[in-house]
């Protein structure tokens, strides 16, 4: 059989990175949530925060492990599948990854040990500090990886010498033109995703009539985040979009399925973009809408896809539909947050049954939005892997097609098993719920043993 190595390698990267991003996105938010719970616990001394922190730490442990193992794969994939990319950007992008290892990975991985196993080994303040350090580590990790990604979207501070990127100004490289919007957009997405999961779990318990005190707290905290951070995210996302319109106009043209730049663009609500005929089929749109959003003027003009030669155009389907999925989910999130806030104001957030039912099913929304958003931004910069400098098809390693096909098959099989099992186990931990007993934190005498964080009291039975 004949394989096209570039297509297979792209499928492999898309698959492994999509699988990976789910877990860091969740753990970035969850570590911040756990750190917050522990800080409140240290401040108020209320047991409910301690029980919640321990409960979520178990789920965090499972999620974090999956994020770590799928992330190591990525750090090697740059070399195994994309060696020409690795060589081309090595002097510029690799140091950013290097700093990620030194300022984030070691921090997270090491203090995770205390966070998971240290409850009865260290005094409470040190445990709380470790949680904060882990949360800070996940933040730093996002900082560096988004600096690297942003540089590939909007390269700056470099020169091309003997066929490779050569660094000239590190601050320009790190704080490149799209970084200051991309980073907050991703971080807020992570926090919102976790808030939705927390809210959803709280709603699930309330519907089952369990863990009332914990659930109320989860509902209030989750709703608060959605109601306040949701609108901020809408603003940040909009600014990020305007930034993209300036630096990567072809991406925005694809997002809006906008072909002809000679006329003001309508806001396309739905369409079936036909890339061959260079037009939209079945279009439903609001006249002048996209022009208003992007140029802030009803008759503003911005580049359409036809302004770019066909070989320099991104595919339209992914960015177009991905963007609509992301924005649609975002609107739902804000609505859930504001309705929830109204219910809290009325004192009915734990008793409004329809709201509990809806939110108990809302947990995947954040993940859908994140994956959609990444499809928008990553497919939208095709055919470039480094915008304007290196095409994806020129970035590939010199590999035989069958080896890439084999590794892709292995990744799909292994990740399917791991993913399904991990979700199943996280669900099992959620079904079991928070422990009602408390660990005695400060062990004054001889320190006791490491404990397995995700292991609850006694034996557990399947399906509980």
């Amino acid at each position, binding site marked *: 059989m004949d394989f096209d190595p570039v297509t297979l390698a792209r499928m492999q990267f898309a698959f492994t990175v999509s699988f990976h991003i789910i877990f860091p996105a969740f753990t970035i938010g969850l570590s911040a949530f756990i750190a917050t719970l522990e800080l409140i616990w240290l401040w108020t001394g209320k047991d409910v925060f301690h029980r919640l922190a321990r409960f979520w730490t178990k789920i965090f*442990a*499972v999620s974090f*492990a*999956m994020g770590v*193992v799928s992330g*190591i*794969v990525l*750090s*090697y994939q740059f*070399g*195994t599948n994309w*060696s*020409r990319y*690795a*060589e081309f950007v*090595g*002097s510029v992008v*690799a140091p950013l*990854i*290097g*700093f*990620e*290892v*030194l*300022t984030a*990975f*070691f*921090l997270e*991985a*090491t*203090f995770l*040990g*205390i966070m*998971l*196993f*240290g409850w009865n080994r260290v005094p409470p303040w040190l445990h709380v500090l470790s949680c904060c350090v882990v949360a800070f580590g996940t933040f730093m990790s996002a900082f560096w990886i988004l600096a690297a990604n942003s540089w590939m979207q909007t390269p700056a501070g470099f020169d091309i*010498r003997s066929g*490779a990127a*050569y*660094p000239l100004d590190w601050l320009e490289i790190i704080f490149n033109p799209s970084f200051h919007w991309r980073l907050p957009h991703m971080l807020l997405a992570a926090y919102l995703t976790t808030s939705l999961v927390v809210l959803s779990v709280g709603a699930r318990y309330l519907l089952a009539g369990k863990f009332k005190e914990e659930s109320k707290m989860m509902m209030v905290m989750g709703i608060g985040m959605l109601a306040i951070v949701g609108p901020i995210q809408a603003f940040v996302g909009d600014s990020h979009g305007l930034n993209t319109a300036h630096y990567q106009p072809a991406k925005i043209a694809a997002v809006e399925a906008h072909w002809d730049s000679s006329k003001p663009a309508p806001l396309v609500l739905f369409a079936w973009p036909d890339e061959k005929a260079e037009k939209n089929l079945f279009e439903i749109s609001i006249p002048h809408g996209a022009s208003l959003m992007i140029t802030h003027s009803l008759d503003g003009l911005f580049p359409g896809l036809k302004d770019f030669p066909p070989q320099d155009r991104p595919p339209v389907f992914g960015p177009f539909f991905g963007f609509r999925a992301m924005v649609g989910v975002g609107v739902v999130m804000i609505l859930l947050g504001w309705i929830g806030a109204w219910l809290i104001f009325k004192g009915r957030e734990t008793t409004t049954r329809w709201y509990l039912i809806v939110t108990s099913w809302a947990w995947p929304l954040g993940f859908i939005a994140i994956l959609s958003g990444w499809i928008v931004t990553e497919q939208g910069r095709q055919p470039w892997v480094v915008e304007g400098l290196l095409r994806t098809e020129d970035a590939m*390693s*010199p590999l*035989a097609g069958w*080896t890439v096909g084999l*590794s892709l098959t*292995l990744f799909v099989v*292994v990740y399917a098993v*791991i993913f399904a*099992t*991990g979700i199943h*186990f996280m669900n099992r931990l959620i079904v079991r719920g928070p422990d009602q007993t408390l660990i005695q934190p400060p062990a004054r005498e001889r*320190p006791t*043993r*490491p404990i*397995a964080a*995700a292991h609850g009291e006694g*034996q*557990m*039975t*399947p399906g509980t």
Partner: protein
Amino acid sequence: MEWYLPVIWGLIIGVAVIMYVVLDGFDLGIGILFPFAKEEKERDVMMNTVAPFWDGNETWLILGGGGLWVAFPKAYAVVMPALYLPVIIMLLALVFRGVAFEFRWVAASSRRLWNFAFAAGSLVAAFFQGIILGGLVQGITVKDGAFAGGPLDWATPFALLCGVGVVVGYALLGSTWLLVKTEGAVADRARSHAIPLLLAVVVLMGLVSLWTPLAFDRIATRWFSRPNIFFLAPVPIITAGLTYLVWHWLKTGREMLPFFGTIGLFVLGFLGLAISTFPYLVPPSLTVWQTAAAPPSQILMLFGVIFLLPVVLGYIVFVYWIFRGKVREGEGYH
């Protein structure tokens, strides 16, 4: 131009790799020894001796790989495609081994399955790390600065021997780690494993030491030409002496020393391989100078390493200290 920068970076990568080999070596060794435990309780204890550390240990693998990319992008771009399948298989094996740490505790009926995933993942990862090492030492076909060989070039008897060597070496590290961290039946069994493992390690190190100069002229010249032979002779002599000491410590019931002695053996073995290949990063054609990143990148990252790595080492030591002492059966996890 700054000829010393690539040399310093070669040293840093070397240190990162040896840190990885020693630290993840002992917890992969625990996985390799997992099937030999008699009861589930013993496996709990074995796993708990490394559970708080494995994640940090594995991070050295990212520092090694990432460091290679930072400092020597051209070497990274040759080595990874050349050793494509071994690298991918090793990473997938590490996936199974890594998630097993968490999954095993949550699993009920499927616990045995995750025991198997932990053991097999550790074994396969160790074996393919040896293959990667052997594949690099035996040389990679390079043309115009890019990999130009076949996808199975690495599959040689020498690389397989290195694979077996690393598995046995990690098992020895794992068993001596158990002497440090456990007592009772688990420690007794570890001690009874450690002695034959030590003998096997010695035999395999000897085989590699004989094979490399016989098969590769460049390595024979490095070791046996004058005056090199006088400067390098201490390496095998110290290795022989240390092997005797580890054997003696195992026989006399020492708990800490066999582990540190085994680390010493690993460092010496690694030093031997480094002597054989330096200054080539991709033997037999690309040196550290030919593959170096732009000087500003090496300098920036060097500052990062000088200021941040001591901090990293500091808190790693701190966490090992927090979780010091023996892990006992039946207590620990709640």
